């Protein structure tokens, strides 16, 4: 049986802007499928990843309705990751930087996401087996 690890990830990029988000979710998916305890600290623009009011839309330019467009929503990816982790015996503790949330007006997060501060990132990292920071491009 695989040893259950606790891993912390820090994300910084907002949704729909960088391939780093896609890669980060791919990494998180593997950890979720292995049943690890996963801590995510979303900082700066990444706090919008879990924004509950994201809405799928049609694409008038290409003449596609919303169903055909099948627009991906990061909030749904997070919810799916949380389900995956739970199904495999792990869990995801997703923490949004509160000040970053307020600055962007994205306080309405999906269920399972909590508000915190950069000090929480330090605590999460301290209590974890390992940590990966995926910084936005400077």
């Amino acid at each position, binding site marked *: 049986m695989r*040893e259950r*690890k606790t*891993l912390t990830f820090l994300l910084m990029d907002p949704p729909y802007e960088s*391939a*780093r988000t896609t*890669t980060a979710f*791919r*990494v998180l998916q*593997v*950890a979720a499928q*292995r049943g*690890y305890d996963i801590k995510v600290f979303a900082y700066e623009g990444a706090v919008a990843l879990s924004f509950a009011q994201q809405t799928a839309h049609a694409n008038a330019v290409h003449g596609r309705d919303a169903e055909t467009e099948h627009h991906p929503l990061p909030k749904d990816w997070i919810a799916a990751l949380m389900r995956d982790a739970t199904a495999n015996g792990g869990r995801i503790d997703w923490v949004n930087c509160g000040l970053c949330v307020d600055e962007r007006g994205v306080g309405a997060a999906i269920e399972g996401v909590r508000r915190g501060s950069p000090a929480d990132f330090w605590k999460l990292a301290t209590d974890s*087996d*390992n940590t*990966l*920071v*995926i*910084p936005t*491009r400077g």
Partner: protein
Amino acid sequence: MASYLLIESRDPFESKDASYLSDLAVRLAKAGSSVSVLLVQNGVFAARRGTHAETVRRLAAAGVDVFADDFSLRERAITATSLADGVKTAAIGSVIDHLAAGHKVLWH
């Protein structure tokens, strides 16, 4: 001995600072650390035979293992036959393998 996984996501043709990561990898390896480099996203452009193959050769000569993310390669239609000598493909789960093993994992 410390073990490192250095993740390069930047296109070497676009980002001059992509060379910083390979320089760091070589120095860490020469200092006695176990070092792997994983190329992801546009970073996999460095994995092809051609202009940046010298970077891979330099890493390999220093004892650094070089991997390219299989998904990023497929996204860019880079086939196994077009990879520079010394580059191996890896699944993204290798990042979790290194984290779980307690290695230091750095993203650039």
